[in-house]
């Protein structure tokens, strides 16, 4: 079932293929500008009266604007058909009249222009046939035309030749040699004019081929990446279906890696650096995500960090990340849960990290003195750099560790080596 997509505000400029009278230029322009086609045609006629400007514009648009690719069915009524033909005749008449008032150069060139128009129109037709037939058969159908096509192309060529010839004879008195030279030039010119559509098509085909090659290269790169990562993991999973823990670990690790590749370290798709593994010391978001991944892998549970904002790592933040990692490890070891929530928020003057689980919880006052996992590795690390640790835990509902670390405003500093070396220099 075809989907009725909402069209963009202005459709791209393309010549109409159905409901056209000469080349579909006026219709295409009308579609593009969203005005009635009658106005566009009238404008071309008026311009045609001014030194053939309208005809020239029409011809140039014909050459450089491509036909629309899809057949849109338009059924112009009889009135519109007559109107359009009348306007076309009027345009040529107006051009000729204006030319007659000036000099008479335009007359024979007008004949040549009509001839060229006939030939180009045939080229449009054959292009259209090529598209429709390539959809069906692929190779054949490029040259298929029939007798009427040949006749029309020949007639057009004759028109062009006669036009140019009359123009030359009428306007120049020349010697034999000069005449021969000019005849050769005129022939070349005529051939050039007649073959314009084929040149244009050749150029476009080349461009299209290049574009296709680029797309193909991109596809190959994606395929290679998927092969290295996803397919390998799937193969590994199939080989050990009886070890659910290992399968889970593989699936999680693979999901994380693919996500990182697709959307970047925070999953926001904003950083754009989707190539390869996260760089060491890249930034807070990267570091937290890496730490979460490590805990996820080691302890076979879900750690889903949500990071709001980012900033380059300094010593304090590195300590903060390590402490957060330790808090995650603690939760993974003791809380007996399958999921840990990690939330990081970068504020202008402070960075907050919350590590939360919905596990068994404990009474913070009842922790024996000799078990100093949390006290030493978390509290010690953070307070040494001026940060703070708040711990909240209730038996039965879970634990939340809140780490905070003061940082220098402003937070929106670009990630760069300077900021880090400065920090180290002042140490």
């Amino acid at each position: 079932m075809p989907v009725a997509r909402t069209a963009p505000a202005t459709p791209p400029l393309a010549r109409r293929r159905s409901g056209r009278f000469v080349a579909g230029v006026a219709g295409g322009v009308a579609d593009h500008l969203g005005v009635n086609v009658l106005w566009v045609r009238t404008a071309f006629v008026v311009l045609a009266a001014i030194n053939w400007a309208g005809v020239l514009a029409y011809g140039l648009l014909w050459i450089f604007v491509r036909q629309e690719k899809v057949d849109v069915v338009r059924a112009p009524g009889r009135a519109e058909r007559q109107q359009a033909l009348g306007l076309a005749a009027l345009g040529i008449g107006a051009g000729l009249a204006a030319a007659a008032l000036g000099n008479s150069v335009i007359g024979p060139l007008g004949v040549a222009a009509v001839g060229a128009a006939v030939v180009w129109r045939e080229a449009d037709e054959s292009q259209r046939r090529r598209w429709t037939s390539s959809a069906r058969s692929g190779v054949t159908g490029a040259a298929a035309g029939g007798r009427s096509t040949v006749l029309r192309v020949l007639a057009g060529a004759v028109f062009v030749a006669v036009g140019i010839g009359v123009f030359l004879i009428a306007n120049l008195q020349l010697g034999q040699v000069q005449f021969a030279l000019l005849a050769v030039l005129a022939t070349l010119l005529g051939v050039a004019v007649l073959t314009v559509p084929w040149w244009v098509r050749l150029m476009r085909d080349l461009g299209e081929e290049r574009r296709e090659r680029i797309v193909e290269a991109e596809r190959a790169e994606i395929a290679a990446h998927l092969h290295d990562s996803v397919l390998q993991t799937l193969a590994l999973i199939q080989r050990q279906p009886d070890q659910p823990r290992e399968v889970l670990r593989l699936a999680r690790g693979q999901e994380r890696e693919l996500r990182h590749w697709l959307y970047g370290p925070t999953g926001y798709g904003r950083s754009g650096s989707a190539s390869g593994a996260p760089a060491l010391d890249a930034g807070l978001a990267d570091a937290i995500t890496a730490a979460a991944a490590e805990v996820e892998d080691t302890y076979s549970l879900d750690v889903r960090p949500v990071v709001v904002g980012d900033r380059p790592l300094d010593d304090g933040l590195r300590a903060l990340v390590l402490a957060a990692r330790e808090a995650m490890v603690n939760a993974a070891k003791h809380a007996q849960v399958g999921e840990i929530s990690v939330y990081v928020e970068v504020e202008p003057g402070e960075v907050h990290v919350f590590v939360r689980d919905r596990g068994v919880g404990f009474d913070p006052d009842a922790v024996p003195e000799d078990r100093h996992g949390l006290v030493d590795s978390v509290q010690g690390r953070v307070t040494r750099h001026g940060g703070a640790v708040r711990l909240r835990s209730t038996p039965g509902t879970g634990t939340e560790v809140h780490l905070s670390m003061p940082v220098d405003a402003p937070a929106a500093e670009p990630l760069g080596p300077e900021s880090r070396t400065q920090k180290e220099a002042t140490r």
Partner: protein
Amino acid sequence: MTVPADAEPIRVFLVDDHGLFRSGVRAELDRAVPDVTVVGEAGSVGEAVAAIRHLRPDVVLLDVHMPDGGGAEVLRQLRPELPEVVFLALSVSDAAEDVISVIRAGARGYVTKTISGRELADAVRRVRAGDAVFSPRLAGFVLDVFSDRPGAAPPGDPELDLLTRRERDVLRLLARGYAYKEIAGELFISVKTVETHVSSVLRKTQLSNRYELSRWASDRRLV
């Protein structure tokens, strides 16, 4: 607006182009949750639009990524016509533009596909009752978009472009993995008030013209 427990089951429609995933969700919801029934499913935008028009389900679970336009396309075609049908986006994608695009197109919430059957049923009940559902990650996105980082454009319409302090607090707790009830307890407000705040944030996310939101939206031709 709350639905009593013994009322008719909530009629849910599934839209996802992966048949395997559809049958998984269907089995989970049918087995574990008595008050939610799956009345139909579709694997493409066209099928979904036709079937939803015909069936008029209460809630539509909508995949974000589908070959012929995705969840946003379904929403665009059906929202004006069926305002009483509620849409809940369900996706593996965590990319901001995907999430924001379905929310802007009118979904009442967003959950990730790794959600458990029980949590999914909760989310369905919640959107059915008129509330919004934010995954922690969506809460994070929204906080990020509305944050006043240095250099951010000044708000055009303060009513829509700024979050109140309370809304910010609620979003932060959502991002920290708190349930509505826990948020209510933490902030000393009622669950109803939490729901009101979240709905208000959803409205702002759908209507605000903050730079990033409108950029994401215009990328997807939503506005």
